[in-house]
């Protein structure tokens, strides 16, 4: 590639490239330290939780981010970090936010913490860093899901009546269970391969997940993913 370039210029270019790379690595290391300091008190950034006893699940304040780069879409992270809105109506560990009432248990919203908002520059750096956390490239590579289409009615029946996802998840605002994250914006925030891989094998990602494995075969998992695509693309 550099064959026709004089030796001196080649050297200069090489030094410039090395300098640029070292600046990038230094900036990256700074962001890693910032993320560890600012996010690490609530979010797991390594896999230690996976080795802990199952009840660590009850101690979590926020979802683990150790596989954020295999999970999220970078552009969604960048946007959400600047304007964080609640994705889990009952928090990351719902039993900690449930309280009995005359009409049954309700979510005690006063106990739900708000996520801090970052400015655009910080959000960009954090999003870039999180996207480097990719310990599960193998699971993503093994995924065969190709986004497709599904009729609204069929998708909705599948999500609710046939698979029971609506017991814990909302597929439209205020429609569905509240213990899991809402799924009407899942397509905007999650990578398609992750959606499919996670539905199929949630415990492979998080051994203490509260997401069960249904009886869905691969085709049924892909139908669910297509439904999330359908409803997600309708969101603003």
């Amino acid at each position, binding site marked *: 590639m550099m064959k026709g370039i004089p030796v001196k210029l080649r050297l200069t270019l090489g030094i410039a490239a090395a300098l640029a790379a070292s600046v990038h690595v230094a900036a990256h290391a700074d962001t890693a330290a910032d993320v560890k300091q600012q996010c690490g008190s609530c979010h797991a950034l390594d896999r230690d939780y996976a080795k802990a006893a199952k009840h660590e699940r009850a101690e979590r304040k926020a979802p683990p981010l150790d596989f954020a780069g295999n999970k999220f879409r970078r552009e969604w992270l960048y946007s959400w970090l600047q304007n964080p809105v609640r994705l889990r109506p009952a928090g990351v560990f719902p039993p900690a936010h449930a309280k*009995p009432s005359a009409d049954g248990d309700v979510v005690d919203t006063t106990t739900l913490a708000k996520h801090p908002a970052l400015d655009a520059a910080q959000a960009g750096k954090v999003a870039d860093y999180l996207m480097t956390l990719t310990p599960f490239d193998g699971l993503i590579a093994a995924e065969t899901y190709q986004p497709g289409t599904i009729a609204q009615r069929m998708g909705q029946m599948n999500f609710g009546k046939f698979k029971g996802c609506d017991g814990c998840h909302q597929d439209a605002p205020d429609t569905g*269970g509240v213990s899991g994250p809402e799924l009407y914006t899942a397509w905007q925030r999650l990578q398609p391969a992750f959606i499919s891989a996670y539905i199929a094998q949630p415990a492979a990602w998080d051994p203490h997940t509260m997401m069960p494995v249904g009886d869905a075969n691969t085709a049924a998992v892909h139908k669910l993913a297509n439904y999330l695509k359908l409803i997600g693309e309708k969101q603003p």
Partner: protein
Amino acid sequence: MKTLLIAATLSLASVTAQAAADSGKQLYSVYCTQCHGVAGDGKGINAAQMAVQPRDHTDTKEMSARTDEELFKVIEHGGKSINKSVLMPPWGDNLNDDEIHALVGHLRALCCQKN
């Protein structure tokens, strides 16, 4: 010596039973209360949106009609496995056999050990 051994064995059995009871209670809180309620009365935070109401685990009559084997099966394989609602998911990939047994024990405590 024999008396001491029996006492130690009984003490160990009691500690083990207590550990299983604690584990069952803890697992119930993590995996079941969202639908079955913090009091186990079937009124969890998800219940209001469900087409089929979750089982009231404090209902002695209903729960007494189920064997431990049935309870184990429905936890492991979900409601569909006993011709009940798909809203009861299969937990067999999340919980091992000991944990499911501990949960069954806790269900028995909820339904049938009234204070």
